[in-house]
C-alpha cells in the first residue's frame, strides 16, 4: 500500500489546496486565477488523452504521457515570464505549452518531424530533451549568459526523479551554485524512472535535500497542487531574477499513466497505489475548491472540455497538414550552410 518514503515527503511538503479541495493558509491566488489554472489543466489533459489515442491509432510515434502531473507543469510555467528560458523533457508538453509553445508543434514533434522542435521566434523554449538529464546544465549556461549580459531572464529546467541519478545532475547543480546562476531546477518526482521506484533510486529521504550539499535552497512542494507549485516556483523565479541564485524544487507527484506508450505499468507497480494517487488528482481538488466557492458548474466544465477538444483537434489538423519533409531539408539543417560533403550528398539525391 502507501507506506513508501513518499508518505514522509507528503507530510513535510507545502500544500495550499488539499486533495479534498479545502484551502490552507497562504493561498494567495484569486478565484479567477484559479479558474484559469483549472482551465489550463483541463486543456492539457485533453491533449494528453488525445496523444495517447493517436499513438494507439499509429498517428504518433512513442508518446510519454503526463497525466497526473498537470499541476506541477502548469503551475511551474505559470510562474515564468514569457521571455524566460525553458529546458524541459519529453514528458513536459503541458509545461512547454503553458510557457508559450504551440500544441501543433508539440504534436508535429510526436509525429516524427524535426520542425516540431522549432519554437516560434522570440519564444525561449528549447526542444524537449530526449536523453535523460543532459539538459539541466543547459539551463545553467542559459541563465549564466543572461546574467553576464545584464538581463534578468531566468532559466527553468524540468526533469524527473530518475534524472537526479545522472552525473549531469551533479554537474548542473554544482555549476549553478558556484556561479550563482538564475536557474530554477524543477524535479517532478513522479515516483518512477520507467519501472524503478524513487525509493530505490536514491537513499536520500528527499531529492530536495540534495540541494543542501550544493549550497542552494531545496524546497518540497505538493506537485499535485497547482497553487502550491505556482507559489514555490514563483519564489524561486523571484530569487533567481533578483540575483540570489538557483533553487531546487521537488514537486511530489505521480505518473498516472505508463512511462511511454511502449510499457505496461502493471509489471512494476501496484494498482492500489495508482488508485490512491487518483484520489490526489490535481484537477479534482481544484474542481472541489471552485465548486465550493460557487465558481464551478458541470456546464462550465463541459464547455471547457468541448473548447479544449476543439483546440487540440485544430492543432492536430495543423500538425498533420505539414507537408512531408523533403530529403533536401534533412540534409540542409545540420549546419548554417551545407558543408562540402553534404553538398555532394545533396547532388547525389538530385536536390
Amino acid at each position, binding site marked *: 500500500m502507501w507506506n513508501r518514503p513518499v508518505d514522509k515527503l507528503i507530510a513535510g511538503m507545502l500544500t495550499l489546496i488539499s486533495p479534498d479541495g479545502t484551502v490552507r493558509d497562504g493561498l494567495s491566488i484569486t478565484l479567477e486565477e484559479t479558474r484559469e489554472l483549472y482551465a489550463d489543466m483541463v486543456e492539457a489533459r485533453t491533449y494528453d488523452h488525445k496523444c495517447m489515442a493517436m499513438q494507439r491509432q499509429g498517428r504518433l510515434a512513442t508518446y510519454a504521457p503526463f497525466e497526473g502531473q498537470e499541476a506541477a507543469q502548469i503551475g511551474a510555467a505559470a510562474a515564468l515570464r514569457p521571455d524566460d528560458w525553458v529546458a524541459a523533457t519529453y514528458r513536459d508538453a503541458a509545461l512547454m505549452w503553458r510557457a508559450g509553445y504551440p500544441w501543433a508543434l508539440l504534436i508535429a514533434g510526436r509525429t516524427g518531424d524535426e520542425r516540431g522542435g522549432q519554437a516560434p521566434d522570440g519564444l525561449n523554449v528549447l526542444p524537449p530533451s530526449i536523453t535523460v538529464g543532459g539538459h539541466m546544465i543547459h539551463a545553467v*549556461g542559459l541563465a549564466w549568459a543572461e546574467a553576464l549580459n545584464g538581463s534578468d531572464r531566468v532559466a527553468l529546467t524540468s526533469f524527473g526523479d530518475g534524472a537526479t541519478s545522472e552525473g549531469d545532475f551533479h554537474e548542473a547543480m554544482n555549476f549553478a551554485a558556484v556561479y550563482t546562476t538564475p536557474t530554477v531546477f524543477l524535479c517532478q518526482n513522479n515516483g518512477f524512472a520507467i519501472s524503478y521506484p524513487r525509493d530505490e533510486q536514491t537513499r536520500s529521504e528527499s531529492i530536495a535535500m540534495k540541494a543542501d550539499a550544493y549550497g542552494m535552497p531545496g524546497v518540497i512542494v505538493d506537485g499535485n497542487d497547482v497553487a502550491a507549485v505556482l507559489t514555490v516556483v514563483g519564489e524561486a523565479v523571484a530569487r533567481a531574477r533578483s540575483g540570489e541564485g538557483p533553487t531546487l524544487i521537488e514537486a511530489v507527484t505521480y505518473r498516472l499513466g505508463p512511462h511511454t506508450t511502449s510499457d505496461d505499468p502493471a509489471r512494476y507497480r501496484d494498482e492500489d497505489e495508482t488508485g490512491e494517487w487518483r484520489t490526489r488528482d490535481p484537477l479534482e481538488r481544484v474542481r472541489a475548491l471552485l465548486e465550493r466557492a460557487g465558481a464551478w458548474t458541470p456546464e462550465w466544465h463541459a464547455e471547457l472540455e468541448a473548447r479544449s477538444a476543439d483546440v487540440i483537434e485544430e492543432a492536430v489538423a495543423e500538425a498533420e497538414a505539414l507537408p512531408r519533409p523533403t530529403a533536401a531539408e534533412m540534409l540542409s539543417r545540420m549546419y548554417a550552410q551545407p558543408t562540402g560533403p553534404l553538398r555532394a550528398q545533396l547532388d547525389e539525391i538530385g536536390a
Partner: protein
Amino acid sequence: MSEQTLAQALNGALATALETDERVVLLGEDIGRTGGVFRITDGLRAKYGEDRVFDTPVAESGIVGAAFGMAIAGMRPVAELQFLGFSYPAYDQIINHVARIRNRSNHRFTAPMVIRVPYGGGIGAAEHHSESTEAIYAHIPGLKVVVPSTPSDARGLLLAAIEDPDPVLFLEPIRLYRAVKEEVSELYYTTEIGPMRVEREGRDITLISWGAMIKETRAAAGQLEEKGASVEVLDLRTLSPIDQDGIVASAAKTGRVVVVHEAPRTAGLGAEVAAIIQERVLYSLLAPVRRVAGWDTVFPLKRSEAHYLPSPDRIVRAAEETLEA
C-alpha cells in the same frame, strides 16, 4: 607581424577575440589563474577580467553543457578541455546536444561555440594524455573538427572557429605548441574552415596528414626529395568537413598517395581519405593508397612512444613502396 610559436598564436587569437567581440567568454579547468595546463590562456583573465575568463569546477560535461547553454543564449563561448583523453565525459553533451541542436530545432537554436582540446602524443605524458581520437569526433554530423599545424593557421582557424555559426572542436597538437615558430600577423584575420593547405607542391606522390604529424611528414618529404622524388604534402587542417575536392585533385595529379596519422589505423580518418580517393579517382591511381598510422593499440607510455608514433622513416618506406608499385 611577429615571430610566434603555435602556443603564442593561439593565445594571441584568444586575446583578439576577447578584444573584438564582447560575446566571447572562455571557460575551462585552470585556464584563469594559471593560464591552463599548457598556458594557452596565460594572462587573459588578468587582462580581460573574471567575467570573461572563468576557471571552472573539474567537470568536462558541465563545461561543455554550460558553454552550450551560453551559446544558445547568444554568447560565443570558447571552452577548454585539458586533454582529448579527458573529453569523453563531455562526449554525450557534444554528440547529443551541441552537434544537433540546429537539427533538433530546425535552425531556430544554434550552438556557435568552440571546444579547444590539446591532443596527441610524443611528450612522454601520463596515460590518457596523448590521445588522437579525432576520428570519433569527425564522425559526428553537425560538428566541425579543425586541427592547425602552423602558428598562422592556428590564429586564423581559431578566429574562424569563434566566428563560425556552428560548433567547432578545435584540436591543438601538443607536440607542436612550442616546436614551430613563424611570422604571424597581429591583425584580425580568419583562415577558412574546410579547405586544406598545400604544404608543398609536387608531382610524383602525395603525402596527406594533419596536426602534429605534419612535422614527420615534412621531414619524410625532405628525405624523399633528396632521393629525387617530387613530393606533394597536404595539411588537411580541417577534418570535418573534409576537403574532398582538394584531396581528389592532388590524388589525380600524382596518382600515388600515402596518408599519415597518429591515431590507430583501423577506422582512422585515413580510411575516409582512401575511400574518397577510390570513389572518385580510382583510375588515376598508379598504386594503392597506403596508410602510415599509429598501431591498433592504446597510446603507449613514454618508453614505448617511439614504437608507436609514425616516424619519418616509416613514412619514407611507405612512400618508396608506393612510388615503386
